[in-house]
């Protein structure tokens, strides 16, 4: 057989590999441009005491998980007990980003499902969420002690993802 006759086969195999590599990827996954950069500067009212201001600076010093949640968000309930369990065991510090939520609703939700957050700040109108590139709760950022964004997860976290993707990042940055 002439080697030229193999060209279509080679092209076919190449295209096949290329297309196959796309199978199983989540088309909803959008890489955040914030990863690897310092988190945006912000100062926002604390949930339980809106006169107190939580800021990027006030959270520096320990790495933490910044969890975007809202009482109106059904998938937040799915991940909530898992996050709570890890936070209770001291696996990480958990900070809440209460997104587009009313104070009373958020507090009732936390009362009902438990409050594992070391700190919670609020973003009632969602303006701060835009600076963080938030487009749907739940979303979770891993923030280093120096305020760098190490990772972003979109959608509810499960134990497997926490073990495989989150904890190793935190272990690397004590």
């Amino acid at each position, binding site marked *: 057989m002439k080697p030229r006759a193999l060209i279509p086969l080679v092209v076919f195999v190449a295209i096949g590999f290329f297309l196959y590599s796309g199978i199983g990827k989540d088309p909803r996954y959008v890489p955040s441009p*914030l990863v690897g950069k310092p988190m945006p500067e912000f100062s926002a009212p604390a949930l339980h005491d809106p006169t107190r201001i939580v800021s990027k600076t006030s959270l520096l010093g320990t790495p933490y998980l910044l969890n975007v949640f809202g009482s109106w968000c059904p998938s937040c309930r799915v991940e909530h007990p898992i996050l709570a369990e890890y936070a209770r065991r001291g696996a990480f510090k958990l900070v809440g980003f209460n997104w587009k939520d009313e104070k009373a609703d958020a507090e009732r939700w936390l009362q009902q499902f438990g409050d594992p957050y070391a700190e919670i700040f609020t973003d009632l109108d*969602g303006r701060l969420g*835009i600076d963080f590139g938030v487009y749907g709760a739940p979303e979770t950022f891993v923030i280093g002690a120096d305020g760098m964004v190490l990772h972003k997860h979109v959608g509810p976290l499960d134990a497997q993802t926490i073990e495989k993707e989150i904890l190793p990042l935190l272990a690397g940055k004590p």
Partner: protein
Amino acid sequence: MPFADRAQEVRYQNLLRELRCLQCQNQTLADSDADIARQLRNEVFRMIGEGKSDDEIKDFMTARYGEFVLYRPKVESGTWLLWFGPFVILAGGALALVLHLRKRRTGATAPAATAARDEEDW
């Protein structure tokens, strides 16, 4: 909240058609009814009012949501295949066609017998 002039309104409409709503992904900010799209439309409106250029507004969006928000991504190493892939394939096809035609022409002029038989076939 009206626009200052017609030109601003046109820019607003054009920008909304070039920016993607992340929640619904296959809709532009102009199409989408999602809350986040409404909010980002407000941001675009605010920035136009502040006198920001189209590029500044797109930079604002990509700094937060990534290149994915642009329906016309920038030409760079990561989008090279996207922009030029079709032309590479087209060029490859054209090259194959030229080579094939050239071979057929030289083949046809060589032995007179085959040329005659070709005519019969037609």
